[in-house]
């Protein structure tokens, strides 16, 4: 059967289920839809109808199954209520449609991009006809190249657990994690998953790029609730190291501008700067070469000196 025939049949089934005032029994559908009437056997018809019904429902078409009034649990028929089918009346101004158009271009990832475009196509019929004055000079993109991204989104939506192999940040070891996913957050160009780690019985944060291979959804839908009070973005922020230590750094006049901007105080070119992780901060300081000198703490001084020595051993010209 050609694609065109199937699209036509699906559309006719949709019209039939919307037109009928009462739930339409399967037998009545078999009479009015050509392809159903012509199917060679009852089984062939049933299979075809089930496939069509699934396809329509997967597109979001609300086909209701109505049970018989006799209480036997038998199915009386199917229907589509127009008010559940149709997008509620909204009237977008031309300017609003223009920002919707901008939003629909934000997703780089194919499936999200296609969803956004489909939504836009629908909403574009709901314009109030005013002139579209496109947003001036703004272009936004969100990249989502992680292969697990669409799987996680789907699992969050259907409240399904996921299993994945995760590479630990420091050791580089791989571990299988089972997680009830709550949300995904993009921060500094990376995507993170926030969820309940089933084996550790704790809320945890995972970086998507450290998932080895692809995450797999497991178990039933609606398997858990997402706590109402979670704030995924702040969970990720607090999973990052906090600034707890303070260094005194001498900065040459007019240099290390971004470092100066971070300082809590500066006097006589000596800046006080708070930091979270000694190794991370030392490497940042080394980036300023001889424009900065660490005065304290001593351990930070040592780390910086070590790094500088290693650089001299590494960058050997041929």
């Amino acid at each position, binding site marked *: 059967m050609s694609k065109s025939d199937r699209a036509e049949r699906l559309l006719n089934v949709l019209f039939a289920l919307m037109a009928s005032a009462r739930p339409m029994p399967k037998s009545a559908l078999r009479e009015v839809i050509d392809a159903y009437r012509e199917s060679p056997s009852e089984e062939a018809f049933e299979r075809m109808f089930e496939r069509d019904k699934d396809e329509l429902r997967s597109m979001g078409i609300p086909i209701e199954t109505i049970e018989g009034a006799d209480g036997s649990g038998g199915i009386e028929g199917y229907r589509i209520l127009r008010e559940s089918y149709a997008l509620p009346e909204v009237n977008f101004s031309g300017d*609003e449609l223009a920002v919707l158009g901008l939003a629909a271009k934000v997703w780089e990832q194919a499936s999200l991009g296609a*969803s956004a475009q489909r939504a836009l196509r629908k909403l574009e019929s709901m314009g109030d006809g005013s002139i579209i004055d496109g947003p001036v000079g703004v272009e936004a993109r969100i990249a989502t190249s992680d292969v697990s991204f669409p799987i996680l989104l789907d699992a969050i939506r259907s409240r399904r657990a996921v299993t994945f192999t995760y590479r630990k940040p420091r050791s580089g070891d791989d571990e299988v994690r089972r997680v009830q996913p709550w949300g995904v957050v993009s921060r500094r160009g990376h995507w993170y998953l926030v969820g309940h780690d089933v084996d550790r019985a704790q809320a945890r944060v995972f970086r998507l790029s450290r998932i080895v291979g692809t995450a797999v959804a497991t178990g039933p839908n609606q398997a858990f609730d997402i706590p109402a009070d979670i704030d995924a973005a702040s969970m990720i922020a607090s999973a990052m190291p906090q600034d707890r230590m303070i260094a005194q750094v001498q900065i040459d006049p007019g240099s290390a501008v971004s470092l100066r901007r971070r300082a809590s105080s500066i006097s006589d070119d000596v800046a006080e700067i708070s930091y979270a992780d000694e190794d991370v901060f030392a490497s940042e300081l080394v980036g300023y070469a001889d424009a900065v000198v660490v005065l304290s703490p001593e351990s930070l001084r040592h780390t910086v000196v070590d790094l500088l020595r290693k650089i001299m051993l590494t960058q050997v010209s041929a």
Partner: protein
Amino acid sequence: MSARVVETAGARLSRLLAVVPWLAANDGVSIAEAARHFGVTEKQLSDDLWLLICTGRPGHLHGDLVDIQFWDEDGSIHVLDAQTIDRPLRLSADEASALVVALRYLEQVPGVHQREVLAGAIAKLESAAGEALAAADGVTVAVEGVVAEEIGSAVARAIADQRRVHLTYIASSDQRSERDVDPMRILSLDGRSYLEGWCLRAEAVRTFRLDRIENVIILDVATTIPEDVAGMDVNRGMRPDGPLVTLELQPEAAWIADEYPNESVDDLPDGRVVVVLPVSDQGWLTRLLLRMGGTVRLIDQPEWSRDVRLAAERALARYDL
């Protein structure tokens, strides 16, 4: 077209259901315009219309069928009877959340001055999408870098009014510089926002991180951007246009190959990685090599390697050892 795009029946039906309300709302559009709008060929759109007029309520008598007139000489389309698909199908959870997450992201982008418009679009979308929107709460895009409100709005105003700006900018090499720029666009890529503009000093298109702009003065000069100048292709991401360098990464520095756009990546058997990547300039690379403290070796630019070593030597000399 060389490759035939295979379209599923579901995808086609989804378009058919969007086509009818859109045509009804835009009475008289041509087949060419409609095809362009839905991103299909004119042949495909006209096939869609032929299919639509063969469908309708059971019985398929006159008055039961979708009625669309599209054979006028001028190629204009008129929907005479849309039957029960005169309104679009409500938004699915995927569709609603993809749009709303993007709108909420745009709301945070500094300098986007259509705030009321965005808020209005979000509110209407929320009322139209209803429950389908619950899924959007699972996705957050955090915007990076603190951009002072006055910087963002001055840049946006200059773009709208097509006026030159004088920037005080801290480059990634940590040098403070003053320059005149004819602003073109605000780009916001993965939470980080930039001003893209024609830099009069470089006589080239440059991008400036908004959170590194210290000060903006809108000049009383109209922009003069050469006509053949185009902005960057945002789908390629931020990619430096300087020379290519080859770096050898120790395993703990292997993330560099993921983090920066590159030409090639070779994994060596011992866990080291060799990556070839473009750099904006020597200053940027020097800072990267210093910060990586010996876990990254520059292979193919001996002069630059020497400069890095000398910089480390000067820095060491400042410590009493």
